[in-house]
């Protein structure tokens, strides 16, 4: 994805992660990294999915993504338990660059504190953190 993009339907964490709350299941969230994060890293060449059942704590790193040159922590935007991991991305991490909000999702979590979503940013507020 060559052009910057921040879909309005997602929630954002200032450490450059997004969360998509399931429309039918408000405690299920899909997580990934933002366009800005993948662009800063460059070609993502390694992502090791966390284990199923792993516990995420909001604002704490839960995994890493790596480019040729650098390692970047991925910070949990929400607390919860990992219920699904994107094995396709583990096998082809370049999908994070190609489609960071779609095929490049990282994990799905069962949220332990759904109220945490209120602390996340909307797209406009997240974009404002990137300026300056």
């Amino acid at each position: 994805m060559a052009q910057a993009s921040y879909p309005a339907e997602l929630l954002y964490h200032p450490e450059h992660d997004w969360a998509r709350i399931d429309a039918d299941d408000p405690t299920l969230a899909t997580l990934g990294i933002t366009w800005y994060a993948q662009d800063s890293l460059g070609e993502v060449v390694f992502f090791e999915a966390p284990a199923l059942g792993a516990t995420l704590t909001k604002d704490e790193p839960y995994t890493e993504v790596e480019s040729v040159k650098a390692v970047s922590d991925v910070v949990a935007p929400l607390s919860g338990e990992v219920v699904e991991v994107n094995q396709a991305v583990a096998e082809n991490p370049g999908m994070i660059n190609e489609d960071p909000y779609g095929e490049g999702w990282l994990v799905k979590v069962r949220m332990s504190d759904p109220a945490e979503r209120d602390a996340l940013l909307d797209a406009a507020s997240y974009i404002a953190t990137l300026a300056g």
Partner: protein
Amino acid sequence: MSSTAPPALRRTPLYDRHLAAGARLVDFAGWEMPVQYEGVIQEHMAVREACGIFDVSHMGEIETVGPGALQLLQRLLSNDVARIAPGGAQYSVLCREDGGVLDDLFTYRLDVDRYLTISNASNHEQDLAWFRAHAAGVPGVDVRDRIDEWAMLAVQGPLAREVVQAISDAPLPARMRAETRSLAGAEAIVCGTGYTGEDGVELLCAAQDAPALWDEIVRRGATPAGLGARDTLRLEVCFHLYGNDLSVDRGPIEAGLGWCCKEDTGFIGSGAVRAVRERGPEERLVAFAIDGPGIARQGNPVIGGGEVTSGTLSPCLHTGIGLAYVPAARAATGTRLELDVRGKMRPAVVKDKPLYRKDA
């Protein structure tokens, strides 16, 4: 003026070209340099399969001139400088008295009493001071800083010679030779050297000629490549990077650079180097490949002693590779290592150097 403002970064004569090509620029040893244009892997493969061009004008040039030049360089450089014929090139290290490595250097003999030594950007000022301090005791030698006069381009890859030959007034010098040519009308020192494991040349030209020369070589098909690809290319073929694999804390024997140390010349540090060579080093720099997933990075500990000094994902081998200092007893090819990669244990195997071979 605020004293907290960071010093302005230096820019090469090709800065505008990098901006126009969409490069991502980073601070590298005080220089604003392109780390990548389109992408590290694409640039890496362009060099392995065709031709890439790198701006390496941040590297320093020290010219040593006069009838005393050989005597000074023989005292400073670890290799036997007397063996460089005019038009020849030689790799060496610069050592302290205790054998610690101050820099690794290429020296070109441009004329009978005229040598040009290429320094690493991060070490240039210190190298220059070291050269000058020791020149004071040698008659008939002048040490000149040439970093502002020269731009340096590396054109590398299986098609690199063909691309540069097409704009040269005479056949290009062979590997490890350095001769003056006219390239698209600009005078340049063409050197049959490189840092990628591919065939190719490095070009030294006047700073003001660099943009037109860059444009001409790119127009003829060279892919602009950044410092990111330069690092992955050199690591696949196990060339040392100063500040990672070489430092004052270890000597050239430990680093596997005994081949460029000729202790009989009496260079500064030769006594210490000889002692380590005779008794055997406690540690050796080995090449490794990770067995399974993961990418080790500089500073990751090796379980049982030692540390990773360079690590990346190899674009050609598709696995984590690197260089690490390990206890000498564990340096043999095939030895299994365990690397502590940010708390995760990653198995790795000591490999023959280079890790990547053209015909493999």
